[in-house]
């Protein structure tokens, strides 16, 4: 019974990496870091683990997630879900998106999987393309003029926004003038 209890305690606590005699206990500590864009910053109350014997402190999954979430918010970074929405909206592959935007295909893959954090300028650019179809079309025409031939303006139907604008145009007025 005693052995079983001892074993249970041993499996639950994480032994210290440095002294191996103590065990890591959850603590909450401010994390001080530096970001090229944000400068020096302090992230409050980051969950960490500290050895009760030697004081060695490590950052586990919770702490890393907290720091990453804080930086994502502070940098107003586009989320992987938004990038996926951008690809889905325009039916783009990662390769095609790379050709169109000029970013590396590997970078797009890393942003999409959340491995790396895109910069603020990249985030803003992709957000504009995601929200403004006309901006995307202009970029597409600029980078792929051949697409014009395959998609002639005469054959193109006005979208909802264009239809609204056409309704507002008062054609007889300029004629009178």
């Amino acid at each position, binding site marked *: 019974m005693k052995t079983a209890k001892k074993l249970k305690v041993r499996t639950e606590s994480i032994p210290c990496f440095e002294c191996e005699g103590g065990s890591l206990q959850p603590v909450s500590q401010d994390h001080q870091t530096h970001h090229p864009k944000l400068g020096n910053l302090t992230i409050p109350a980051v969950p960490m683990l500290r050895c009760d014997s030697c004081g060695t402190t*490590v950052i586990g999954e919770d702490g890393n997630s907290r720091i990453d979430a804080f930086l994502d918010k502070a940098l107003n970074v586009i989320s992987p879900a938004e990038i996926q929405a951008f690809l889905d909206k325009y039916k783009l592959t990662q390769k095609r998106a790379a050709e169109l935007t000029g970013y590396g295909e590997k970078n797009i893959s890393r942003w999409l999987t*959340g491995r790396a954090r895109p910069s603020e300028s990249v985030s803003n650019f992709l957000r504009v393309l995601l929200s403004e179809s006309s901006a995307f079309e202009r970029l597409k025409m600029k980078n792929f003029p051949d697409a014009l031939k395959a998609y002639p303006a005469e054959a193109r139907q006005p979208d909802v926004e264009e239809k609204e604008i056409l309704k507002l145009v008062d054609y007889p007025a300029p004629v009178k003038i």
Partner: protein
Amino acid sequence: MFALGAKRHYIPFSRPMPTLPRKAPATIRRQIIEALRDPARRFLDQNSSSRNHLDRWDLRADGFFADLADGLASDLLFLKPKNQANQPQRYQCVLAYSENDPYPALDIHVTLSPKGQPPRVMIAVHESDTVQTLPRIYVDS
């Protein structure tokens, strides 16, 4: 040090060549890769500036661990020489990104916790200064 007007003679290759660190066993390398792929078994050393390097280069922790696991799957790991006899055995490698990536080569120190099952890893990240002495050798098997 030198007599005034005396000519200095530079002898090429006079310095001893740095010795290659010993390779870590493949079983250890596999244990570390397994631990790196499990979010509950991987930790960053808070005392070093490990996390600050990731923040500076806009690397998310999940991505960094995945990159390191991928790197160790193909490159060798080395034993880190001990400064003191009672120190735990550490391992070292260089995580080198491709030329197209904006990230620098990172010097990685790994501490494997042999106590407690399953084994866990503590990673310390440094800007690479040993990249010249730690070669990237592809694993055969």
